[in-house]
């Protein structure tokens, strides 16, 4: 099976004294993984390295068959825009833009033409199409989290990464977000990696990488 993620001999130095080594890891295309670890274990650091926003001290990182740290900065930006979608713990949409404009911005940064029917399709699949022209400040927390998932999947990324998406949610909302992430991954035939210390969702995944 083709690999979506491959890390080998990866290490990151926070400073001269503090360094973290990551075990080698291979993720096949279409798999759904849980990246488990306590706070401060290096989950976010690994996710930042995988998304190309934090250069590792040593080692090799391949995402979707591309050695991402061999790319030039602008190529890496474009690669991230086209191949990786990221969902954060807090939704954090751009407040001055409507939900539609937030998604149009994501399309624009990826260099893709504006595709409003795709936006409609994604928002409908997340049951928030009525919020299309609303500003983030007018939406509930649940709607915002759905909108942030929509932004992450709008360009049909090959890899969907979520950083603590359920940590601050109650059981019901945590379950909903997890379901939506899995649904969107299957819908877009993506690979899913969720970094969390939330033990509630451990049972929902076959594959686990623990730090």
């Amino acid at each position, binding site marked *: 099976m083709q690999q979506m993620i491959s890390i080998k001999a990866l290490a990151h130095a926070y400073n001269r004294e503090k360094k973290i080594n990551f075990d080698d890891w291979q993720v096949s295309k279409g798999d759904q993984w849980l990246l488990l670890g306590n706070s401060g274990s290096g989950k*976010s650091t690994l996710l*930042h390295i995988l*998304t190309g*926003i*934090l250069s590792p001290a040593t080692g090799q990182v391949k995402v979707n068959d591309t050695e991402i740290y061999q790319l030039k*900065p*602008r190529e890496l*930006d*474009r690669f*991230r*825009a*086209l191949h990786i979608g*990221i969902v*954060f713990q*807090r939704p*954090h949409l*751009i*407040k*001055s*833009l409507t939900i539609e*404009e937030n998604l*149009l*911005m*994501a*399309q*624009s*940064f*990826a260099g893709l033409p*504006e595709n409003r029917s795709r936006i409609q399709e994604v928002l409908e699949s997340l049951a928030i199409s009525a919020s299309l022209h609303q500003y983030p400040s007018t939406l509930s927390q649940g709607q915002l989290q759905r909108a942030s998932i929509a*932004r992450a999947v709008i360009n049909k990324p090959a890899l969907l990464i979520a950083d603590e998406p359920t940590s601050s949610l109650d059981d019901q909302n945590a379950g909903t977000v997890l379901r939506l992430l899995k649904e969107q991954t299957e819908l877009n035939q993506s690979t899913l990696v969720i970094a969390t210390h939330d033990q509630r969702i451990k049972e929902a995944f076959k594959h686990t990488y623990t730090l």
Partner: protein
Amino acid sequence: MSPLQISWKSLKSKPLSSGLNILLIAFGTGILTILLLASRQIGDKLTQNSKDIDLVVGAKGSPLQLILSSIYYIDNPTGNIPLEDAQRLSRSPFVKRAVPLAMGDNYKGFRIIGTDSNYIALYQLKNATGQFWKKDFEVSIGATVAEQQKLKIGDTFLGAHGLTENAHVHDHHAYKVTGILCKQGNVTDNLILTNIASVWKMHEEPEHDHAHENGHEHEEEEPAGNREITSLLIQYRSPMSVVMFPRMVNQATQLQAASPAMESTRLFSLIGVGIDTLQWFAFLIMLIAAVSVFVNLYNSLKERQYDLAIMRTLGASRIKLFRIVIEEGLLLTLTGTIVGILLGHIAVELIGSGQESSQAKLSGLIFLKEEIYLFAAGLAIGIFAAIIPAWQAYRADIATILAKN
């Protein structure tokens, strides 16, 4: 969703601070626009109206007042001079052309000037319709006079004594319009021209002028006697006249010679102090505006660090973030500049419409190519104010920002 649209949306979401910055820039640019338009138009009018006039000879008094009254028609004359003296000076070998002026009356604020055919030659006047005055009380009127007073060939009107409206009306003689001048773009557009004899007669006792009621010609034939005129416009014959003639007038006669070039320069240096002060005031406002835009962008950047980091995770390059911040600065300052220029033009038009003196009327409908410098200044202030915040956005360490949040 281009960076420009993102910048615009960001500014729109902060209407109060964006509005204040735009207002500051607009205020500074507006003052500069008003100064630019006013000083250019006043300068142009001074030049146009004094073109080809080397010297003005009149009664002793303020030389500036003599120039203002005899060339620009915006002050009272310094007095009258004997016609005999004026005629003697006109025959001087230093003089190429001498144009006599006799003032004293107006029609609804437009001055009635008694003169001769030399005035026509000096300003190269042409008629749009009709012909130049030939007999007493016939007048040629300027284009603006005709337009504003709705006068046409054959119309008659009564002149009023003095140089302002609402004065005593000379109802014993009526002026008749025989010609309407082509638009000249100078002071003659606002004048009513007739022969000197008409002005004299208008001020004689009514019972004394019955002999002229059949209107025979007087121009350039009136015997001097005790007659007086207001002033004499002089064109020199040679460069040597510049040195000799004024000195001769000022020392050897009871008259005064004033140079339009020198008095205009003196006038401008007097006005210039005020213009300079206002200009520095406008520059100070622009500087405050630039600092305000900088503070606005800098503070907003601190608040929006996480926004910008999210944009980077969505694939925005460092250059794109740089552009978003720079364009915010430019949008603020260019909007302010455009608003300021428009307000400046509106203000000048309003000042012009409220001006009593029709001779020096300002217009806000004139656009100068120098106004492009105001746009350039707006552009420069925008870049200057945004460059540091934009550089910070460019250099932002997104992994650290995301980790902190």
